[in-house]
């Protein structure tokens, strides 16, 4: 088996976050809630976001859900990176992550941990797994109400 390829994809950080996530759960209070779903594989994610009083800065992001190592690690690393970011910064990071999945960009030093997801770009069928949580966060942040109807479908 080409374990080298696999080690690129499944970096230690990804496996650790899959097994021992740090940001699983629900924020308190819940200022935004959004569900995401990958219909083709059944992965689900439920994001909760706690915003500051002005509603323009993320205090906390938590996730619940079920999915593969790539999907779960992506959610955990995203939740970590989002703490304290302005909503505007967060939307920019979501775009950057999507670009990174196309092999076109990477995160600066401050967010270098997110770059462990770069290996996913070499496995096109798995990009959906990595981006589900990011699409879901975008929908949560762009929603004007705490609980938008429906869910984000990553198809």
């Amino acid at each position, binding site marked *: *088996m*080409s*374990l080298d*390829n*696999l080690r690129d*994809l*499944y970096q*230690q950080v990804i*496996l*650790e976050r899959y*097994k021992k996530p740090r940001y699983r759960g629900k924020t308190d209070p819940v200022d935004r809630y959004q569900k995401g779903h990958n219909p*083709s*594989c*059944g*992965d*689900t994610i439920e994001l909760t976001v706690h915003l500051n009083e002005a509603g323009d800065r993320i205090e906390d992001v938590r996730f619940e859900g*079920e*999915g*593969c*190592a*790539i999907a779960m690690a992506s959610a955990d690393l995203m939740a970590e990176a989002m703490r304290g970011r302005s909503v505007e910064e967060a939307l920019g990071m979501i775009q950057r992550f999507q670009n990174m999945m196309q092999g076109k960009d990477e995160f600066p030093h401050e967010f270098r941990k997110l770059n462990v997801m770069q290996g996913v770009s070499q*496995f096109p*069928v*798995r990009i959906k*797994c990595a981006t589900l949580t990011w699409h879901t966060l975008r929908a949560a942040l762009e929603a004007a109400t705490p609980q938008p109807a429906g869910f984000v479908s990553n198809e």
Partner: protein
Amino acid sequence: MAFTTAKPLAHLVRADFPILQQQINGKPLVYLDNAATSQKPTAVLEALRSYYELDNANVHRGVHTLSSRATDAYEGARDKVAAFVNAASRQEIIYTRNASEAINLVAYAWGMNTLQAGDEIILTVMEHHSNLIPWQFVAQRTGAVLKFVELTETEEFDFEQYLSLLSDKTKLVSVVHVSNTLGCINPVKEITAAAHRYGARVLIDACQSAPHIPLDVQDIDCDWLVASGHKMCAPTGIGFLYGKLALLRAMPPFLGGGEMIADVFLDQATYADLPHKFEAGTPAIAEAIGLGAAIDYLSAIGMDKIANYEHELTAYLFERLAEIPEVRIYGPRPKADGSGRAALASFTAGDVHPHDLSTILDQAGVAIRAGHHCTQPLHRYLKVQSTARASLYFYNTREEIDVFIQALKEAVEFFGTLFG
């Protein structure tokens, strides 16, 4: 292990499948996703090529030579399908795009026009979405009620519970012959007999049985049976509906268009006789001919021989999977000789998510399915989000099972060692 001089079936047919002679990620392809779709032998590919190179014309329309040849080949394939499932008449075989379309045909032409509020449709929790959604449509439109057969402790069709669901209200029992996830073989003959005692109709989804075991619709006595060609060595885009002649005659048409008519006026029409009444528009001619070629190929090997060889593979697959303690297989165990279930295994492997497993196995050249296999309600019933599935066909070898097991062990280890 018994010593045998006969070559395993796979070694005899392997060369017939060009696609299997390739490398994936630097490793020989080990194709274990046959329940999703089968590979195609040269004989089928040649039939398609020869049709387009020599005989291509529209069917049932022209009087010219090509049209006549195309029509003969297209209708000849129907005879082959009829013989393959032992239908009493070739008029009982309707070509469809696939099994899903065949079920929709029955749901719309029969279900929507026949069922009424309070009538009951019995399905099972193990149905593929294609044998679920059309009946949801019918229930929503007519007010009919859906009832579900659940599973026994060994994760098989619960026959006793099924009997308790049957009543005079039961108008249809629609059930899968072989589950694409559990691999259990449902007792369709007994299911049909029990339903008929209440005057209910029976539809059998034979997608996972037609490619693997001999089928006899007269012996089963079902009212309808559906299958997809692409899972039995034929091209995509062709499947069939078998239906009892009197029943098909009584059903109104499904789709309207060319081919399905007798006399057309501006405001009304009369319809063609069976089977053409249900085949509107130019059909998938080459694909139907390809299906005929696939049936010739399978029949030349012999469906009994295919079934017996797959039993051997099943016994070996389960023996090898038992070596990995993290593996949990869904559905019934095979008997000692490997019979009693289909040659597939849906499983979970400890902490390794099926998608991650599939990516890791792909690096070893091994193609398996990961996900819900279009049986989301069954996965919910089993309380598992998704499973991995290795599904075999007669061209698979024991050596390929060895490659799969080795890669599976390495994947479990790869994930396991980091955490101990």
